[in-house]
């Protein structure tokens, strides 16, 4: 216990007596932590945006006017049983007209003229999917059912080539972002670790004589290593504090921009609501990087 306290005190003291080294290491820690935070947020941001878009997409099956109620019910039940389908909602011809009426001023006019010629809008089944990726396959399956004969066309069909392309593009981008984002985060964390590791290693290299002397005086490995690890953690704590303080104005400005220009309410709100957790994570990552790099950097000097 007495040793632990001494190690802690000595690490604390060294941090302040090696002011220049501490400043350099802390500065790099701040930059690293800010970059990691922005990077993490960007990935989260792109993913929430894509999810938003994906949720707006569903598969609409337009039903022939000749279809009977029990035929439609049979199809609805069949589709609901298909794998990858969450809900199937029936929209009658009258519902469709009402929706058009409520959609906008323009829609109101259109609905009025549509009523005059006897409501040409088709009834439809709106299918929500578990995964947007499956839309093509599910579309094909449904068209293959005998009950599917009453379907005139679907939102995925060739009538609208453009839309099909857009959906496929979104699927592709979404997958790419998740995969590339994961790889980039890992690469980034490794680069950050290497930069900090090198800084600490240089700091320790200039003090290798000190380590030598401690060994000669009879200090145990832990007595030598401990203060350096405390020092590394201090860089993490200082760096995280500065990064967290810097985040407040930055996130306000960037957040406002994102909400106004990109309609990114969800992601920004998430950031705001979890700010405490994010700050805690920054501290944890900072201390982790600082302590681990100190540990690694000092190990090679410790052979007796």
């Amino acid at each position, binding site marked *: 216990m*007495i*040793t632990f306290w*001494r190690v802690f005190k*000595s690490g604390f003291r*060294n941090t302040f*007596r*090696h002011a220049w080294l501490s400043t350099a290491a802390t500065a790099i820690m701040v930059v690293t932590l800010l970059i990691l935070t922005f990077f993490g947020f960007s990935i989260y941001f792109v993913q929430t945006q894509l999810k938003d878009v994906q949720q707006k997409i569903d598969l609409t099956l337009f039903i022939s006017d000749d279809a009977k109620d029990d035929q439609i019910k049979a199809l609805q039940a069949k589709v609901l049983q298909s794998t990858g389908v969450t809900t199937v909602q029936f929209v009658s011809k009258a519902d469709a007209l009402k929706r058009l009426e409520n959609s906008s001023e323009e829609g109101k006019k259109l609905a009025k003229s549509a009523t005059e010629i006897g409501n040409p809008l088709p009834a439809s089944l709106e299918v929500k999917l578990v995964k947007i990726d499956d839309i093509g396959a599910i579309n094909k399956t449904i068209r293959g059912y005998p009950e599917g004969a009453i379907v005139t066309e679907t939102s995925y069909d060739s009538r609208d080539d453009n839309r099909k392309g857009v959906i496929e593009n979104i699927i592709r981008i979404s997958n790419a972002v998740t995969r590339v984002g994961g790889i980039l985060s890992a690469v980034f964390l490794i680069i950050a670790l290497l930069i900090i590791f090198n800084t600490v290693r240089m700091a320790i290299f200039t003090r290798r*004589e*000190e380590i*030598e*002397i*401690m*060994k*000669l*005086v*009879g*200090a*145990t490995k832990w*007595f030598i290593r401990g203060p350096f690890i405390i020092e590394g953690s201090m860089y993490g704590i200082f760096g995280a504090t500065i990064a967290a303080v810097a985040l407040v104005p930055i996130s306000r400005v960037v957040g406002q921009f994102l909400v106004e220009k990109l309609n990114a309410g969800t992601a920004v709100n998430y950031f705001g609501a979890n700010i405490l957790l994010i700050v805690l994570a920054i501290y944890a990552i900072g201390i982790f990087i600082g302590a681990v790099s100190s540990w690694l950097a000092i190990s090679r000097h410790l052979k*007796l």
Partner: protein
Amino acid sequence: MILLDRVTVIYPNKTVALSGASLHIQPKEFVTIVGASGAGKSTLIRLLIKEEEPTSGKIIVGSIDYDTIDKSNIPHLRRKIGVVFQDFKLLPNLTVYENVAFALEVSGVKTKEIKRAVPKILQLVGLSEKARHYPGEISGGEKQRTAIARALVRNPKILIADEPTGNLDPKNSWDIIELLLKINRFGTTVVLTTHNKDIVDALKKRVITINRGRVVKDEKVGKYTL
């Protein structure tokens, strides 16, 4: 007691640093080891603090047989032997007081005990006034006295001084030697290595002469002859 029995050290590049060197130093003795550069003095010192392993031969210090000592016990061994070096080896970012206290801190001595022992030892070496200074702010002689204080504060049975006057002017050199004699009178075995003929001749103590890794002369009251 220090006992070296036919100790040989051969470095990987085949340089023979010590070749069958034997010597026996009694408790409370004051022994000077002399020899030209490269004769094997520094190797001998490094063997005693187990910074180096002999290729063959036996080393016993006190009641400790160096063959049987475990790697994890080396720090404990070093705490029992006080060592003073030519280049002082003080921690630059600690004050004089803290440097001396450090030797006790690593041994797990209680803070209360440290606060009692350090000022006493600083007074013994005449550094009470400089306790709050950093090594960069004091003279060479004061640095060496700090190093001696650090070596002595743990009450070692043996004090090894490896060319302690090598970086000092004659006046400071004599101050250091007188300090070592005083320590010896208190009952500590002192092993001194030096190149300084005046000092060796004036000491009138036992002198062991090493040449090319062998003990070539061992006199009760010796002179510096190479």
